């Protein structure tokens, strides 16, 4: 649904994006993580048609985005720094968006009044608090019935209850209409429960992208105790990390839990336990600190 090919963006001498090839499937929720300055916002601005790329391609549903209204009217974008007309209230913006987005859904606008009841729709958005501005932006975006929803640091300023409510609304559209979501954050924890795909950015590059299932199935933590001290691990086992406390070996192994059990089971260990890793741990071992700044997203 969303694709970039070798996307590069330069601001004068500064290379903000360096050959980014991103793939987001229709109906998936894609989490883009990376430290500050990795290029997440710049990338999203290209996907929203705000920036024109220096080179490469930016495609949504197979079509270039920049200056392409037919594509852009299917995209809703909630930037980190929300920007509206001076003095415009949520209701004024609703009237404005109705004229621009052909699919703007009035019924939904009225139905969602209840979900965002703390937002005063007649008050100038700029005079609302930051959290309220975000809520107002979500309210309007959900009424556009977008096929693609772009969220830049969306939960910044939202309280946990609102965060949940907003994600619940988003998930409904993902399941019911197959809406595609791309969401950025500098914090992995924040995205762990909502995303099914992950992309990691650093220094203007996409370091890797993978499905969450794939990430979870390919690494496993094993705790094992052998009868003898000098037991040799099977050489075909790819061990990324090992620790020893007393007689207990803790291994991080690149394979499925079943495979680890089978491979190590033949050594007749006294104890053999496989423990699934949290996404956070997976990132630590997958990226192995090779990439600078990756630590920052894990905090």
């Amino acid at each position, binding site marked *: 649904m969303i694709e970039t090919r070798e996307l590069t963006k330069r601001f004068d001498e500064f290379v903000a994006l360096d050959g980014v090839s991103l793939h987001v499937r229709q109906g998936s929720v894609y989490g883009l993580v990376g430290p500050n300055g990795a290029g997440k916002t710049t990338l999203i601005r290209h996907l929203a048609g705000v920036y024109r790329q220096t080179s490469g391609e930016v495609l949504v549903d197979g079509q270039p985005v920049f200056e392409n209204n037919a594509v852009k009217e299917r995209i809703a974008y909630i930037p980190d720094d929300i920007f509206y007309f001076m003095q415009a209230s949520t209701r004024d913006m609703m009237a404005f968006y109705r004229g621009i987005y052909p699919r703007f859904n009035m019924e939904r606008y009225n139905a969602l009044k209840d979900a965002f009841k703390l937002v005063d729709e007649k008050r100038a958005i700029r005079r609302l608090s930051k959290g309220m501005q975000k809520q107002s932006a979500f309210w309007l975006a959900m009424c556009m019935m977008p096929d693609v929803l772009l969220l830049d640091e969306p939960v910044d300023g939202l309280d946990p209850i609102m965060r*949940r409510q907003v994600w*619940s609304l988003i*998930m409904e559209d*993902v*399941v019911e209409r197959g809406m595609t979501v791309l969401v950025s954050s500098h914090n992995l924890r924040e995205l762990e429960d909502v995303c099914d795909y992950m992309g990691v950015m650093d220094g203007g590059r996409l370091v890797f992208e993978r499905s969450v299932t794939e990430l979870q199935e390919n690494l496993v933590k094993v705790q094992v105790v052998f009868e003898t001290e000098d037991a040799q691990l099977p050489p075909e086992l790819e061990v990324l990390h090992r620790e020893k406390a007393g007689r207990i070996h803790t291994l991080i192994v690149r394979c499925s839990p079943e495979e680890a059990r089978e491979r190590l089971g033949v050594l007749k260990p006294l104890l053999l336990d496989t423990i699934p890793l949290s996404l956070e741990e997976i990132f630590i071992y997958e990226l192995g600190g090779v990439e600078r700044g990756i630590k920052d997203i894990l905090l």
Partner: protein
Amino acid sequence: MIRLDFRDSRPIYEQIMENLRKLIVSGAIAAEEKLPSVRELATKLAINPNTIQRAYRELENEGYIYTVPGKGSFAAPAGTLSRQKREELFRKLEEAAVELMYAGVQPPDILAHIEAVLQKEEKKSE
């Protein structure tokens, strides 16, 4: 009904599986009862529908639930667990027994305890 703890380091799909297993085994979800749809759970818990789907798929492999295409997922009647799952449960029983022995509990007491649990469960299902 289903609680997730995001400080828990286990993947979310495992937490959902664990929750549903408990509900089914305790009878809170009766055999042949329909489980909440993927859509319902995804919106209610505000988590990705694929995560729910995965939990359902693995529960089906373990034999706790079954799916009727177009109708949804249902709690399976007792006695349908897969061989692997049964082996896993026996392993857990083994571990617990070994630990109890280590704690100094005498084998007859362990057996008596299991006996009592089984009798209580049998009464419940009558």
